[in-house]
């Protein structure tokens, strides 16, 4: 299966990169923008056809490595490949 994982900074944590993108967009003339947040997008191709097992694996991966719980949240979607 394929997992798409989105790792984002928790609300309330200042996101310097998102902030910089926001500013650059403004100088490029994109003015009506309220906020920009930058996160990571991880695509993982897992050799597992069982949805539930795949989900457990993905969750485990995120908890262990892909996201840092002090500052980040994650969310994922699974697709059969």
């Amino acid at each position, binding site marked *: 299966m394929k997992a798409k994982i989105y790792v984002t900074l928790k609300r309330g*944590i*200042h996101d*310097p*990169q998102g*902030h*910089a993108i926001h500013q650059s967009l403004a100088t490029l003339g994109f003015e009506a923008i309220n906020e920009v947040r930058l996160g*990571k997008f991880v695509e993982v191709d897992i050799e597992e056809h069982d949805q539930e097992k795949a989900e457990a694996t993905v969750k485990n991966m995120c908890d262990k*490595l*892909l996201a*840092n719980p*002090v*500052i980040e949240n994650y969310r994922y979607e699974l697709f059969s490949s």
Partner: protein
Amino acid sequence: MNVGVISFPGSNCDRDCHFVCNDILKQSSRLIWHQETSLKNIDLVILPGGFSYGDYLRTGAIARFSPIMDSIIEFASHGGLVLGICNGFQILLEVGLLPGAMLRNTHLSFICENVSIKVENADTPFTNQFSVDQILNIPIAHAEGNYYADSTTLSTLHEHGQIVFRYCSGNGTLTNESNPNGSLDHIAGICNQTRNVLGMMPHPERSAEAVLGSTDGILLFNSVLNTFEKSES
């Protein structure tokens, strides 16, 4: 004193730390490959600066799973002295030996220059040769030194005197201009509650010799040596 400097793949200040311990401090020091698991006879563990695993994904995120890390956790839990510098600090945060996390510098760029930091706690195994409020001139070199912790963690740090170094101006005031990376509360270095684990972004090993422009950093190594010698006698 026996020093063990951990080499992770991508560490690049490991040899510099080894040089200071071995050639300047004249202590026995060795590089320990991250896949080793023994810290036998080691009195001080240094997690050096660099880009372990390229800093890919997140700084320190992959290195924390190196085989040696379990031994370091064990070593620290028995009071062993652990010093994390720059990337080493980031690894200590990721593995949870120190609280908080590291974000990108607010200005986003890598920054390499000498900064002033202030000693907040001179009563640790790493800082006993300093005095409180002493101002050090010391290099930093990082893109992610913007320390973050939630407010509960921050008050705990304050309460237990865990904030060891803070960025300051040349005369010791805490200004926004003298905070090079946006770090929370100007934090440049913290220790754990038992004081035996220290993480800091500035590089004491780069300011340990007059030919390199500053010797303020050597006092940190002298502090550790002093701690060690006291515990031996």
